[in-house]
């Protein structure tokens, strides 16, 4: 029998805690494949954040540290500064990175920390049951915006890639999505480049991945993928926002 497809070595055998249909699993796999292909697994440290991906320290097949809500870039800084030769990355959601952790993400980029940030934006607080996030789309219904996000009272969704690209210390900022096979392949290219840059000491990278929360959004998995493509990507345009590494 010939093996034509197998699990990446970059993931452990622990079963994911993610809901069926959620694209966290795909993004985990992309990160893990990149680490494996770049031969980084043996000397990487993953920093898990708080939110749906809180258990990611169980899934990435490398050393890992679980961080407090929003503080992953500070924890990553602590690790990277004492082990500059190691690969250090954070895996954070939008509540973690774009709300409670805005200071830490902005300042890690400002210092030009040579780390990689995987920012999973699904426009909602998934883990706690679907509350409004800073990235929740206008008029989107969540458990704390039951009549839809009212931008006159809650502001317009924050665009983190655009914001981060303005920081002089940031090296590489790109927004991708996981809505179909093509966009998944593009997402992997971006993630791989971010790790390659870290390996080459090029500085701070953040890859924002538009991801689905079919449960929180109240959509079928397939409709949720369409929502990424049609709704999220139109408010959060895909593309390279900054690349000082070329």
């Amino acid at each position, binding site marked *: 029998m010939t093996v034509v497809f197998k699990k990446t070595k970059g993931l452990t055998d622990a079963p994911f805690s993610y809901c069926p249909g959620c694209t966290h699993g795909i993004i985990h796999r992309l990160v893990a494949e990149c680490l494996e292909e770049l031969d980084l697994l043996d000397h990487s440290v993953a920093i898990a954040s708080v939110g749906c991906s809180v258990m990611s320290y169980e899934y990435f097949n490398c*050393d*890992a*540290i*679980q961080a407090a809500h929003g503080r992953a870039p500070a*924890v990553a800084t*602590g690790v990277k500064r004492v082990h500059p030769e190691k690969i250090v990355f954070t895996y954070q959601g939008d509540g973690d990175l774009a709300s409670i952790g805005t200071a830490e993400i902005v300042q890690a980029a400002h210092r030009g920390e040579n780390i990689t940030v995987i920012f999973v934006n699904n426009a909602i607080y998934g883990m706690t049951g679907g509350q409004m996030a800073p990235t929740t789309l206008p008029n989107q219904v969540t458990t704390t915006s039951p009549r839809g996000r009212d931008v006159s009272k809650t502001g317009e969704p924050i665009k983190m890639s655009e914001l981060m690209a303005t920081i002089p210390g940031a090296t590489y900022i790109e927004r991708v999505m996981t809505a179909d096979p093509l966009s998944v392949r593009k997402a992997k290219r971006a993630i791989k480049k971010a790790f390659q840059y870290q390996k080459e000491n090029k500085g701070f990278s953040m890859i924002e991945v538009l991801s689905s929360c079919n449960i929180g959004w109240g959509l079928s998995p397939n409709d949720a993928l369409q929502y990424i493509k049609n709704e999220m990507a139109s408010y959060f345009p895909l593309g390279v926002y900054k690349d000082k590494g070329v």
Partner: protein
Amino acid sequence: MSKVLMKGNEAIAQAAIAAGCNAFFGYPITPQNELIEYMSKYMPDKGAFVQAESELAAINMVYGAAAAGARAMTSSSSPGLALKQEGISYCAGAELPAVIVSVSRGGPGLGGILPAQGDYNQATRGGGNGDYKVIVLAPNGVQEATEMVRKAFYLADTYRNPVIVLADGVIGQMMEPVEINTEALPLIAKPWASDGNLSRGHRNVVNSLFLNPVELEKHNQDLRAKYDLIEEKEVDYELSHDENAEVMFVAYGTPSRIVKAAIENLKAEGINACLFRPKTLYPFPYEALKKAAQGKKFVLCAELSMGQMIQDVRLSLEGSVPAHFYGRAGGMVFEPKELVNAVKDHLGGR
């Protein structure tokens, strides 16, 4: 080596580097600024120094560096320590060795920048969530502060627990002759460190999350067992013994030195008093204090606060000896004569 005249904050920083501190993360706040400034200048090239964007970030950088095996430290003052509580709880939960120097000032809120001891409860009880304990060492001078910061790294590594060196602002700001121990503090193996090295044959994970209640209870029980061991082995105090003493002062930090002057003054007036000085605020020397107090007319607890350690003093005494309190706050520091008068008042106007 001869003694040199140094400011407390700088001496603490130098002693930390001498004790092998190789990662420092801090944020400017008065009255501890000379400490972070010294670190920025003298941290060896192979070590890490970061001026963090916030107290929150600084303690979380300590969390990361400690998780990766470093001898990590941060320093701050009262309002800054308040912000660090989340990270201290995480360090305790994940059992990480970390040293936190608190050069305390007056509060609450923004308070003031002059020395005070209103952070006894903050240090010994903490404001972070969960059942945890932080070892707290309280120096009463610059020399002892340097010795305690060295000991703090030893205790942190030994017990895999955060340690606070609680120095009031007087100690941070004053200059005293000091001789810093430059002997290497032996490294303790950290096979648990998550430092990106799978050649050890397995993954290491540093974590404080236990969603399974059975596991979390076990974790709490294991921590409790560790704290029991710390309480058994690490209690430290100073007792200026006097068999004829009819009064016992209890004081820590700078006030303990003012008490010593008050004791001399009282002696000149024919009143014998002694001093009990806790050097570890956690673990608190409950039994030793109670034993030392027996036979005294009363105990007078003198603090630069409105009364915080007095609660531990009363817990120690269990009502066996009357306990009185004298305190000043806000940066006002009592003079020996105030303590003398307080003793005379309690003795019935002698």
